[in-house]
């Protein structure tokens, strides 16, 4: 049903499919025209995939509650006998899954159109990293969706994070190239470690941030737990705040 509601609004196509697709294509055209190695192109295509997942997650997390605000169904949703965090989690999980499909298409384009060699170093570790990144992105999306419960301007705040996160997580270039001051922001984002783990599992000789595959995975798992804990605490607080201040029905 969440899927039906999601696809009923055609806007999803822009952030979920078109935007990451365009970004990835631009990156390909830029780097493919030079003497880029096949390893670097694999690096890009994996980054493009994560961009697709992230774009859909952030759009979905905003929409999971924002959609109710715009529809005027916020009260109906809140009046249901289950915590809002559970409703939102179901929606965010769906949206992240939709992002996986999007990522898959970006990878297919990369591997076919640009003929990036489809050589995954360790498919099992790649799969584990991809699933962990999926869970981590969902947790991050869930945390962000609380902002939309708090205020109708929440959509603006979370949407504005889309591009900075593309940059900060190193989807298209190594995070280490970021200015020193931006690195802490990159490190607290689980997708940074997710893409690192995915690249570690896929690309031979990849060093990345230097903590290795399991290091990436552990850090991501730790951050995911923090995101989830924060999300549930924030949901409880934000819902109580909205009920106390009578701001639930504003849209």
């Amino acid at each position, binding site marked *: 049903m969440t899927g039906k509601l999601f696809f009923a609004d055609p806007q999803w196509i822009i952030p979920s499919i078109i935007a990451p697709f365009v970004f990835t294509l631009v990156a390909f055209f830029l780097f493919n025209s030079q003497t880029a190695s096949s390893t670097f192109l694999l690096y890009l295509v994996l980054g493009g995939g994560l961009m697709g997942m992230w774009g859909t997650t952030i759009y979905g997390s905003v929409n999971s509650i924002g959609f109710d605000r715009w529809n005027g169904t916020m*009260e109906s949703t809140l009046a249901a006998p289950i915590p809002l965090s559970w409703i939102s989690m179901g929606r965010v999980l769906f949206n992240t899954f939709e992002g996986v499909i999007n990522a898959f298409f970006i990878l297919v384009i990369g591997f076919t159109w640009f003929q990036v060699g489809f050589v995954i170093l360790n498919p099992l570790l790649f799969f584990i990293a991809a699933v962990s990144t999926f869970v981590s992105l969902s947790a991050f999306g869930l945390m962000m969706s609380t902002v939309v419960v708090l205020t109708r301007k929440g959509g603006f705040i979370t949407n504005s994070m889309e591009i900075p996160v593309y940059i900060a997580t190193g989807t298209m270039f190594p995070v280490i190239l970021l200015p020193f001051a931006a690195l802490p922001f990159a490190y607290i984002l689980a997708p940074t470690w997710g893409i690192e783990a995915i690249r570690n599992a896929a690309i031979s000789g990849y060093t990345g941030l230097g903590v290795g595959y399991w290091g990436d995975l552990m850090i991501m798992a730790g951050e995911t737990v923090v995101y989830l804990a924060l999300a549930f605490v924030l949901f409880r607080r934000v819902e*109580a705040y909205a009920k106390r201040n*009578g701001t639930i029905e504003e849209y």
Partner: protein
Amino acid sequence: MQAMEERVRPLQASRGEGDAVEVEDLTREYATRSFFGGVSRVTKALDGITFSAHAGELFGLIGPNGAGKTTTIKILTTLLTPTSGKAKVLGMDVTKDLYEIRRRIGIVYGGERGLYNRVSAVDNLKYFADLYGVEPSTARARIPKLLELVGLQDRAAEKVEKYSRGMKQRLHIAKALVHDPEVLFLDEPTIGLDPAGARDIRKMVVEMRDRGKTIMLTTHYMFEAEELCERIAVISKGKIVALDTPSALKNMVRDISVIELKTYGATDQYVESLKALPNVVRVVADLMSEEQVIRVQTPLGADLLTQVVSLLPEGAKIIDRTIKEPTLEDAYLRLVEE
């Protein structure tokens, strides 16, 4: 004039099934915050209201805009926290037993909001059945019956955005019943509907009451409250100013009768001159409609008629005139204007 305490008649003896809704000294304040976050103004939306609705009763809450009706409903449906006081639904505290209360109540909002417009009626009902934890097999059996109840079975697969206002409102009712609640809160369910659509909704409300549901209804339409409700609480400026049966409320204005004029060409000045007459308690006029209606409340009854007619401006005509018993609306106006 009776004191407010007398008008809010002590709660009638329970019918043995207990009270479905209990409200005691309930207060709700809204704080308006300044740009810098400080509280610049506090508005009291509810000011210590007390009432109860019996199980199986159709209880009305009427009052002007901003009187506190919707705030009361929101608190009772657990969507708003009270500032102080107690509110219980089916014996449970609205601030503590949120999820258990929500499982056992249904809410019908008036107007366009509250439905997913881009999917069908069936999808809406399936979704809310899911949210309310209705077993899929139960939902599959119940949804067609509900669609039939509200007369939408032939349009059930259409997107809700193609529905008329009346159809949406009927779907609201089906949505509120999808988990078979014991108590229904109807917040202005006929607002903005044409007369036929509003009549259909009223019929459904009666049907739900006959099925044993406790119903709490807010409305702006006095005839609707009079037709449907067993007891009515009149709320004004956050306080309950009267609580009784419709006939008892009408008795509060038995000292007056109403001269009802249907006119053509009457002006605002004419209405003002009527208001200035001695022994005129209140004048309610609708001059904008094609058929102008002016209601003059007076203890003199027909004896005032000569003066009323004599003041009529040149060119204006009285099409019809009747002396009527006061209605619930007359009682309501007196109560909320005091």
